[in-house]
């Protein structure tokens, strides 16, 4: 993956597969602690402790089209090679939370990249799911909550081209640039 926003897109697909109705994505820049923390939390079907442990093994996957599952191993590796950490908390019937902590200024930390495209891809692919994207640092915060959009839209679909265009502008104009 060339940028972390692609890892995020990839990991959220797991939440979509897990039939989540609400997926929360948080990106937190902490300049003082020198960390970039990405958290992806869902209320999907969850995993047993053993499955959650096995999921970071590249040769573990639930799919049948191929024998490898690289999504979680990729983001784990990307975090750990910047001196960061990675964890999965999951409970069956409750949901799953994936947390990746990166060294913010570490030379090997990939750029966050195009979060706007990642969010648009998710919203257009799964308009029935509620997404909350939060980006914050010490000075600023940006929150996009599709539940807010849906409340205004009523029966106008979230994935209509005009609405997706609005969401694209909404994110790109309101989200603030990353500090490092």
């Amino acid at each position: 993956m060339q940028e972390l926003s692609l890892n995020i897109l990839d990991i959220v697909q797991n939440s979509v597969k897990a039939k989540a109705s609400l997926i929360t994505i948080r990106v937190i820049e902490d300049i003082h602690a020198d960390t970039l923390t990405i958290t992806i939390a869902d209320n999907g079907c969850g995993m047993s402790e053993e499955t959650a442990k096995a999921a970071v093994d590249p040769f573990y996957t639930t799919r049948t089209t191929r024998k490898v599952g690289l999504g979680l191993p990729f983001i784990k590796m990307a975090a750990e090679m910047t001196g960061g950490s990675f964890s999965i908390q999951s409970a069956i019937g409750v949901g799953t939370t994936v947390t990746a902590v990166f060294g913010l200024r570490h030379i090997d930390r990939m750029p966050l990249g195009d979060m706007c495209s990642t969010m648009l891809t998710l919203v257009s692919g799964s308009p029935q799911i509620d997404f909350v994207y939060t980006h914050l640092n010490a000075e600023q915060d940006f929150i996009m909550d599709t539940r807010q959009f849906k409340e205004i839209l009523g029966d106008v679909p979230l994935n209509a081209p005009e609405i997706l265009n609005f969401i694209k502008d909404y994110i790109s104009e309101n989200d603030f640039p990353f500090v490092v």
Partner: protein
Amino acid sequence: MKSLAELQALRDSMKNKMGIRSDESGCTRIVVGMATCGIAAGARPVLTAFTEEVGKRNLTNVAVSQTGCIGICQYEPVVEVYVPGQEKVTYVKMTADKVAKIVNDHIVNGNVVTEYTIGANAK
């Protein structure tokens, strides 16, 4: 700066146009593989390009959607096009640059872009 008030206005203007959009049957489907393999190979800009091109041309009976791993990871980004009544066409090693030609030649005018298909690229 886009605000939620603008979304309200957009919704009101769209309300009047609702129902013009045709239903799913008889709809051409463009499906982009968005698993780890696809994303790593560059599927996200391909998907964005299709969505934009279809929106720009106002093609109301074309749906752009996403799927998981199709099983041919070495050919990612992979895009499948389903035109009702015709055989599925699989485009491989896609880039955003190839999108306009596929929408114009295949989706709009019905001529498959053979040079981008799996048949022309498989070794």
